[in-house]
């Protein structure tokens, strides 16, 4: 009798039941879509952080560049023009410079790596060098009076690419850790002193490089032993070479980089240890910058950050508001439906139906509507998430600011008198692009279904309460 009565009653007021179910469905659908989008944004953020930070790296230690260092300065060829005018360099001189030098960080003191590795809570620590390979080719032009830097610069071809010196015995930590080898193999301890290189897949495709080929790094020919694909959103270096070789052929200004590093990658024993490890290292190296992935996360700007804010704030409150409105609407309409059935319930009470049986009937009808709302809502939520996946909007994440890399050494070829460093004409970019997805998990579906049924239950409680309060005599006296 319960299900027969329930079915027939819902069929009698099908329009109202559909209206309530759709209201609940809209709320549930919005909750699913917003939560899925929020998860997608979080996944994108994690991917960006992993790509920028490296999988397995908990803490990164760098040294800010020394004051007055070449980092951040720009070159305008003014000195070179003067050298030509004074005859220090003759017009027609061919220039072919290949320089591998430190980029944006200062050098960490020797022994810093060993000290960090000994800290309690540190599982492993490896060093690295972030370098830029700069090649300048051209012929020194004839400079006439009034001619500016533009015409001087246009006489030269400049190419740059980023090179990371990595600890070949421990590539599971550091910049190579987040990539996936798609061809050949990665660096191993056997390559520690070899002229072997692993090339980023994007750079390889652009420059038609492949495993087995060679690449000129800092004037030395390196054999390409593997191609690595960085995760989406990453801003990887173009080439990876063994740290020892990077230290050997790289320069910091005019000084050698033998035994030097500019980055330490640290793995902590557990996520709970990270803050204490960070603190210990900061105390050990007071002038160093010690960051973990959450520090990087807080610096991420761009549309990814905006999307995260949108999903977490506006999205969350919007879906809560719609859900509350749907619950209220369901409750009001259920109470109205009970009001229209007052005589019917009075008759049932006269026939000996206890109040709890009548209340149970009302709640059953509401829960049935809630279940219908859940089914449609899950469909709507899936549709919303699928739409986001299909549109696959690209979001950008920017970390830090552009820097001009410094290069020293080539200035000597242009003349020693007053020579200045020849700077790279590109800046390093930390803006990465990720595609937004909206994953829908079983847990999310479960929570959404529970919410919809809860909505039906709340409506049923209000309606049932009204039905339970009816006095039979008063109910039977009601004119319909």
């Amino acid at each position: 009798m319960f299900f027969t009565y329930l079915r027939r009653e819902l069929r009698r007021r099908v329009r109202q039941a559909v209206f309530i179910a759709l209201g609940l469905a809209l709320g549930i659908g919005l909750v699913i879509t917003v939560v899925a989008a929020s998860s997608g944004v979080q996944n994108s953020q994690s991917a960006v952080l992993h790509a920028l930070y490296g999988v397995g790296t908990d803490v990164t230690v760098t040294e800010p560049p020394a004051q007055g260092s070449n980092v951040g300065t720009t070159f305008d060829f003014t000195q070179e023009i003067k050298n030509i005018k004074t005859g220090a360099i003759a017009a027609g001189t061919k220039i072919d410079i290949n320089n591998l030098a430190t980029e944006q960080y200062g050098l960490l003191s020797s022994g810093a790596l060993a000290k960090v590795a000994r800290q309690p809570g540190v599982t492993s620590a490896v060093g690295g060098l972030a370098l830029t390979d700069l090649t300048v080719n051209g012929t020194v032009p004839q400079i006439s009076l009034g001619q500016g830097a533009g015409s001087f610069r246009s006489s030269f071809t400049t190419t740059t690419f980023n090179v990371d010196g990595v600890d070949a015995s421990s590539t599971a930590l550091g910049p190579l850790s987040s990539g996936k080898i798609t061809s050949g193999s990665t660096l191993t301890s056997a390559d520690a002193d070899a002229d072997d290189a692993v090339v980023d897949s994007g750079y390889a495709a652009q420059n038609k490089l492949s495993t087995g080929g060679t690449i000129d790094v800092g004037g030395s020919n390196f054999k390409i032993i593997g191609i690595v694909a960085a995760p989406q959103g990453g801003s990887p270096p173009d080439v990876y070479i063994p740290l020892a070789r990077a230290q050997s052929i790289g320069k910091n200004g005019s000084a050698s980089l033998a035994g030097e590093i500019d980055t330490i990658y640290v793995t902590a024993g557990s996520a709970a240890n990270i803050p204490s490890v960070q603190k210990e290292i900061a105390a050990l190296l007071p002038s160093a910058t010690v960051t973990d992935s959450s520090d990087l996360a807080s610096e991420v700007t761009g549309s990814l950050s905006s999307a995260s804010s949108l999903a977490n704030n506006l999205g969350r409150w919007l879906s809560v508001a719609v859900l509350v409105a749907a619950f209220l609407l369901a409750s009001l309409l259920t109470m109205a439906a009970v009001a229209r059935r007052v005589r019917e319930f009075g008759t049932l009470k006269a026939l000996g139906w206890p109040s709890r049986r009548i209340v149970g009937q009302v709640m059953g009808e509401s829960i049935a509507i809630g279940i219908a709302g859940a089914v449609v809502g899950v469909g709507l939520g899936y549709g919303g998430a699928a739409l986001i996946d299909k549109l696959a909007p690209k979001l950008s994440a920017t970390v830090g600011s552009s820097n001009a890399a410094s290069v020293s050494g080539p200035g000597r070829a242009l003349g020693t008198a007053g020579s200045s460093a020849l700077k790279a004409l590109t800046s390093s970019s930390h803006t990465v692009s990720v595609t937004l997805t909206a994953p829908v998990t079983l847990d999310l579906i479960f929570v959404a279904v529970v919410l919809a049924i809860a909505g039906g239950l709340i409506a049923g409680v209000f309606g049932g309460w009204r039905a339970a309060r009816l006095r039979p005599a008063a109910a039977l006296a009601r004119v319909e």
Partner: protein
Amino acid sequence: MYKLSGVVKKYRKGGAVVTALQGVDLVIEDGEWLAIQGPTGHGKSTLLQIIGGLDRPTSGMVEFDGTDLARMPERQVTKVRARSIGFIFQTFNLIPTLSAAENVEVALVPLKVGAADRKARAEQALTDVGLGDRLRHLPSELSGGQQQRVATARALVKEPTVLLADEPTGNLDEGTRDEIIGLLEKLWQSRGLTMVVVTHDSIVASRAQRQGLLRDGRLAVTQAPGRPSPSQ
């Protein structure tokens, strides 16, 4: 069966207090048919509802088989109604979404009768009132007389000891009225029911053993000539 002593019913209407019943004393014997007449608004339906436990008196006693319904907890009164008291209403009060058979089954639900047994008893009850061929019809597909037959079957399917009918022929034409009252009389006789019928129709009231006149909340009962009460 029933003994009402000093039953008073007052209720508020607007700012005023209305006295629907003013100290009603009444004894209804087992198997008796009592008709209660009176002008509209003088407390007939109120008295019937108090007899049936649908309402409580402001003061007084309503003894039913030795138990005072007026002081019984609501849950227990509901159980008494479920087991022992059948109701027939002027407006039939059938559930519009349930068929004739399902409407009759509704009366057996509080008694926790199994589904198969419920179905069988409902079908038999409808057959007894001459509607064996209308089991699956909805109330909207039945005439007024047929709907009142369904209501009668619903009232009697649980084999109550008391049948209370509030203007059972009020919404019916003369011919149908005679049919229904004839049916009620037949069932009263065959089942030994105690029956109380509220009616404004003298022809209906004349069929009863005793007639009560309720005017201004006061009841005066007379014996119908030639229709002795069970104790006589």
